[in-house]
């Protein structure tokens, strides 16, 4: 609650200030109320003024004293006159922006101190945000002025209609070729050469994007005086200084300037879609594809997202007519806390118009959550590649989003004079809230489990495989029943084989007889025949043994399982084909692959195990760990568990023969109570190892510890 009078008023009341020439005032409407925007042409900065403040400024002519002006403003009486403190703050703001001219000599010490503090602040901003460095390059205003006839016509209704048509065409084409597009994306997107191409395309597309902002600003009479490059997360990106648009009276014009980049990119994406659809595979098509991805997807996700401080944010702020939405929404949250939690009744609300409240509160919460998520995600992705850098990035991100406000909050709680007399209440409440949060995070037990994937597993020795090619002629044993070791189970037939055996037998007989005939007359011929007899009989033996292999017997005692028993007879099977199983008592089991990161938990906190089969996910079957392979291994038991096979285990792609996991894995065999249906052998299963209940905080700490342990190989 501001008092009308100020103790420092006497310091300013006699001054006769005047606004400097390079300041210009624009009239704008925000949420139904008139505001005045003061534009400083020298620095390109803007200040929003209330009507009373504007009146004050307009009365500053270098002749009237501040006291006279203030009395004049008060005498008007229709609006709320500014209090003396507000007036001083206004003058101070103008002075800080070098917009004030008075009849007093400049104070050089003060000037240099102010310059130093500005330089320090710029420096700190750079240090705090090293990933967005700006390098101004040149002043494009005259160039743009010369090119004006080229783009001016675009900013019209005709231009809008043409643009809409173009974008619609692009969308239609993209929809028609949707599957092809998705396929391209999956195959090409992240290959090395495409990344290089994408980098180049990105810079060009973003350059046109910025050109869009610049042209839009120029089209409605703004000025653009700076073009440069900035490093955004280490990727070079162009930028233009289009803040002159803030002076536009119409919010739609301001919005178009903010949206111009997205408009350009969408148009580019639409053209690219057409090119892509028409072109033959080759460089042109690849470029077109990249332009579509950048101009279509990334623009809408990043530039168009109002929760990030890119174009979308400015569009939203202009649309809802809340300038400086981000900063004010944070201030609003702080104000709300002060007023309703700490009971500071005279806290100053940043709300200046009706309906702002909801926007401010909603935006603060949404953007906080979103920024937190995105920062951590980016940091996590980078951390997998460059660990130290990623961790540093994550620390910077967390510091910016969490720690700095936290430190500020604590300092406010402990030191701020506004809390005098209410500090105990504030501390109690904050302490209680923090305590509740800690309790929730570290003391509230929540269900805790590890989910791993496995396959329904049968040991090799239990499998019944065809040893030779042949047609299955007969099922000797009854499927599903117990069989003894050595018992005949299946009979194959191979007509070619038996014919061959007959031929060979006849040939052998012939050779023997010829041998008998010449044995006594021609020793040389006899020896030759004898050799032939040896070779032929060997061949015959081998064919005979293959004939024996046509009969499949049980390799072990167990239950004979023939999954496709009904339509098996008469089928031609190849050598090595799996036909059935002879299962021992405990088969089959679920063979589960546990990644290294989870192994400690699974081992140290044994609990109930539950299994869901991929086939029947809705059914939960209780299970138990039957055995565990004690050592780590890299061999993946089934291709179904590898990443290319749709499983969770990333494998080494350089060795296509055998799937080897990139990181050590651990194997568990889980027996399912009540057995496993036999038609799912070899199928995927989801296994849940229950670890009881634990609070979330400890889990996070454990996984963090693991990350660091694994990175530093301790």
């Amino acid at each position: 609650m501001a008092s009308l009078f100020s103790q420092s008023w006497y310091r300013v009341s006699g001054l006769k200030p005047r606004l400097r020439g390079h300041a210009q005032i624009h009239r704008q409407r925000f949420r139904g109320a008139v505001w005045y925007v003061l534009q400083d042409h020298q620095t390109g900065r803007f200040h929003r003024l209330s009507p009373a403040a504007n009146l004050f400024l307009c009365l500053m002519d270098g002749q009237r004293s501040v006291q006279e002006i203030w009395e004049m403003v008060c005498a008007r009486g229709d609006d709320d006159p500014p209090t003396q403190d507000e007036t001083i703050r206004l003058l101070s703001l103008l002075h800080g922006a070098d917009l004030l001219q008075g009849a007093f000599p400049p104070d050089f010490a003060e000037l240099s101190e102010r310059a130093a503090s500005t330089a320090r602040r710029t420096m700190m901003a750079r240090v705090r945000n090293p990933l967005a460095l700006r390098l101004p390059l040149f002043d494009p205003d005259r160039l743009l002025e010369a090119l004006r006839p080229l783009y001016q016509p675009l900013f019209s209704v005709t231009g809008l209609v043409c643009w809409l048509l173009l974008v619609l065409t692009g969308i239609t084409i993209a929809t028609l070729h949707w599957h092809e597009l998705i396929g391209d994306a999956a195959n090409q997107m992240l290959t090395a050469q495409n990344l290089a191409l994408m980098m180049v395309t990105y810079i060009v597309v973003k350059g046109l994007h910025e050109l869009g902002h610049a042209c839009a600003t120029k089209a409605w009479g703004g000025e653009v005086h700076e073009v440069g490059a900035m490093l955004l997360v280490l990727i070079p990106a162009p930028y233009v200084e289009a803040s002159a648009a803030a002076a536009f009276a119409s919010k739609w014009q301001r919005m178009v300037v903010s949206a111009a980049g997205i408009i350009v990119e969408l148009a580019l994406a639409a053209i690219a879609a057409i090119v892509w659809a028409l072109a033959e595979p080759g460089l042109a098509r690849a470029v077109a594809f990249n332009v579509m991805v950048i101009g279509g997807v990334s623009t809408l996700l990043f530039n168009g997202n109002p929760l990030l401080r890119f174009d979308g944010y400015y569009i939203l702020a202009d649309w809802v007519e809340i300038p400086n939405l981000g900063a004010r929404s944070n201030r609003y949250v702080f104000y709300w806390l002060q007023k309703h939690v700490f009971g500071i009744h005279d806290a100053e609300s940043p709300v200046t118009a009706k309906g702002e409240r909801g926007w401010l509160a909603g935006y603060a919460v949404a953007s906080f959550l979103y920024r937190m998520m995105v920062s951590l995600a980016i940091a996590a992705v980078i951390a997998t590649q460059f660990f130290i850098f990623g961790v540093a990035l994550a620390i910077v991100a967390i510091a910016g989003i969490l720690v700095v406000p936290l430190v500020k909050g604590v300092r406010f709680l402990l030191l701020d004079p506004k809390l005098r007399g209410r500090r105990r209440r504030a501390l109690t409440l904050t302490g209680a809230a923090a305590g509740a949060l800690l309790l929730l995070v570290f003391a509230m037990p929540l269900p805790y489990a590890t989910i791993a994937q496995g396959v329904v597993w049968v040991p090799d020795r239990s499998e019944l495989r065809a040893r030779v090619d042949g047609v299955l002629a007969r099922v000797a044993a009854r499927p599903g029943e117990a069989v003894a070791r050595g018992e005949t189970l299946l009979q194959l037939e191979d007509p070619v084989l038996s014919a061959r055996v007959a031929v060979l037998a006849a040939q052998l007989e012939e050779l023997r007889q010829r041998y008998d005939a010449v044995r006594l007359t021609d020793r040389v011929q006899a020896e030759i025949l004898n050799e032939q007899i040896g070779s032929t009989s060997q061949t015959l033996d081998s064919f005979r043994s293959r004939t024996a292999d046509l009969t499949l017997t049980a390799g072990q005692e167990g239950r004979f399982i023939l999954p496709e028993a009904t339509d098996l007879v008469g089928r031609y099977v190849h050598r090595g084909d799996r036909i059935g199983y002879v299962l021992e008592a405990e088969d089959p089991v679920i063979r589960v692959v546990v990644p290294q990161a989870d192994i400690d938990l699974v081992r140290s906190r044994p609990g109930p195990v539950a299994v869901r089969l991929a086939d029947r996910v809705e059914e939960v079957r209780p299970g138990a760990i039957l055995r565990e392979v004690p050592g780590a291994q890299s061999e993946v038991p089934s291709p179904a568990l590898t990443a290319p096979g749709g499983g969770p285990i990333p494998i080494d792609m350089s060795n296509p023969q055998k799937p080897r996991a990139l990181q050590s894995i651990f194997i568990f065999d889980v027996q399912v109570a009540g057995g496993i249906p036999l038609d799912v052998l070899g199928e995927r299963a989801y296994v849940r190892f229950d670890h009881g209940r634990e609070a979330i905080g400890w889990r996070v700490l454990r996984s963090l510890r693991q990350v660091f342990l694994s990175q530093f190989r301790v």
Partner: protein
Amino acid sequence: MSDGAGTLPRLQKQRPLPPARAWAERTVPPEGKLDRALNWAVGIARARLAAFYGLRYRAIAEHAAALAPELAGLSVEALHARLPAVTSALRRSESPPPEALAAAFALVREWSGRLLGQPHYPVQIMGAAALLDGRIAQMATGEGKTLTAALAASTAALAGIPVHVVTVNAYLAERDAETMGPLYRALGLSVGIIREKQELPERAAAYACDITYCTNKDLTFDYLRDRITLGQRASDVRLKLNELLRPSGPEPRLRLRGLHFAIVDEADSVLVDEARTPLIISAEVPSQFAPEMLTRALSVSQSLTQPRDYGIVPGERRILLHPAGLEAIEAATSADGPGWRARVTREELVRQALTALHLFHRDEHYILRDGKVVIVDEYTGRVMPDRAWSDGLHQMIEHKEGCALSAGRSTLARITYQRFFRRYRRLAGMTGTAGGIEAELWAIFRLSVARIPTHRPIRRRHLPDLVFPDTTAKWQHVTARVAALHAGGIPVLIGTRSVAAAEEASGHLGDAGLNHTLLSAAQDKAEAEIVALAGGQGRITVATNMAGRGTDIKLAPGVAERGGLHVIMIERHDARRIDDQLAGRSGRQGEPGCFQAILSLDDPLLDGRPLSRLLGRAVLATLPASLAQPMARRLLRFAQARAERLHARMRRELMNSDQSQERMLAFSGHSE
């Protein structure tokens, strides 16, 4: 160059050149947060070294003492003849060598012994050396601070530095200047005294003397007036040029010659306790609001009810309007004239009216005299006829009392002691009690405390504090104790926090039939005389802590044998330091004395802490005294420490807000 000479006004030969330094003042560099933190850290470290700093000056005192026998044998003429050598040795450099200082000290000491009959003790020489070094000399009560200050002041003046000796009231300034006058004259130094109602030429003449005795208030106001005269053109070079170019006229425009060197007596109360008091020079302007508006504001405010429409912020003496109240005001004034249309104005008016009605009471905060509202100082009980509340509050109160409206006042310049004394190029101070504020003195004024040992060991006894559950019990005990002491012929001094408490004490003593003297709202001189007599046999004196400061209580013959002056404190002060000041009233210069605090849990320090009070009472009621008394004592000590911290923080915040305010008002230049 020669052709340019024609355009300049000719310098006449008889006109003296301007002084080498037309205006001296330290520019206080703006402090960053880091500077501030560092200053406090250094201050805390230096606080521990106070005793060490004090002992550093022992060598110089011994040196001076060694020179004494030789000087004692000299004739008056020979002493005079020594002066030029001593003076030139002092002036040879910014910081004279210890030998030169010792020689000067010895000479001044010799003159003091011959003219005043009081040659300086070694501890006084040590104190003077600390003062010249720009420190706070912490010397116990009765150690002769006046004499110490005179030694330092005359040495500095001999070195050519203008000295301001700053006292807490005009009586002390005049008394000290007159007592020390012969000494200064013997040394060829001029002494000026700043008195009330002096006009500018007189003041300028007084400040032009080598040594000027003044009160902190007069000094600061004179400085403010000079700053107003100087306006934006306060630089040294500019002043000298003005002096050269000014058409010759003897009329001085300025009072002071800048801020060279100040020796502040009772430094803790001036620099710390009163640090927050802003001194304001204002001019009359037409009242901001018409009488009808004040009438209307009063009537509107009377229609508001306390918890619903407004509240009083506890501890801050401030009215807070609630939303319901704001609506009520808007509704009530909607039909009134254009003056009521602006929200800020009408709310300000009503808030002022509520403040006038509920926070300022007649005969407590102000009295009516000759149909005028006159402010009463809460602590000293003195009336302040030249003061007025600001921002229309004074008019509102006048209107409430039905007086004729005085003109409004608008500020021309304002400054706090905190900001003012920082501007001295060299600052020093004396106090009996600097405990607990050393860090602050360093951080704000760059003053470190040097604890000077006492001339004779202290023989004052501190009896353990007595704590009673309530005031009734306390007064019973106090009157009984006073009666007993009185019967034994021992003089008693009862010290209180405020005038009201002193009057209460007087009432209780009167009821008990004890003949006593009450000191309040009197003039400085009378106060000093009464206090000086408080050491008379069987005398009972009731005084606020502020009364008769700087005056020694001399014991009447025979009193010392009975145990000396007995000081009874009946309320804890806001700071332990002030308790110690009261204790220091007895046992001066190694005389016997006794100090006792007789307190109750109704102590104002516990106001707003009902839980502590209840706890204390419960403890006193249940536990045996041997256990309960220390606990109750500690309770009050805690409350006192809390108050100390609170005040320290408020001073720090004032400093910080002053600085940020200064930064914000940079565009308005340097007005004061």
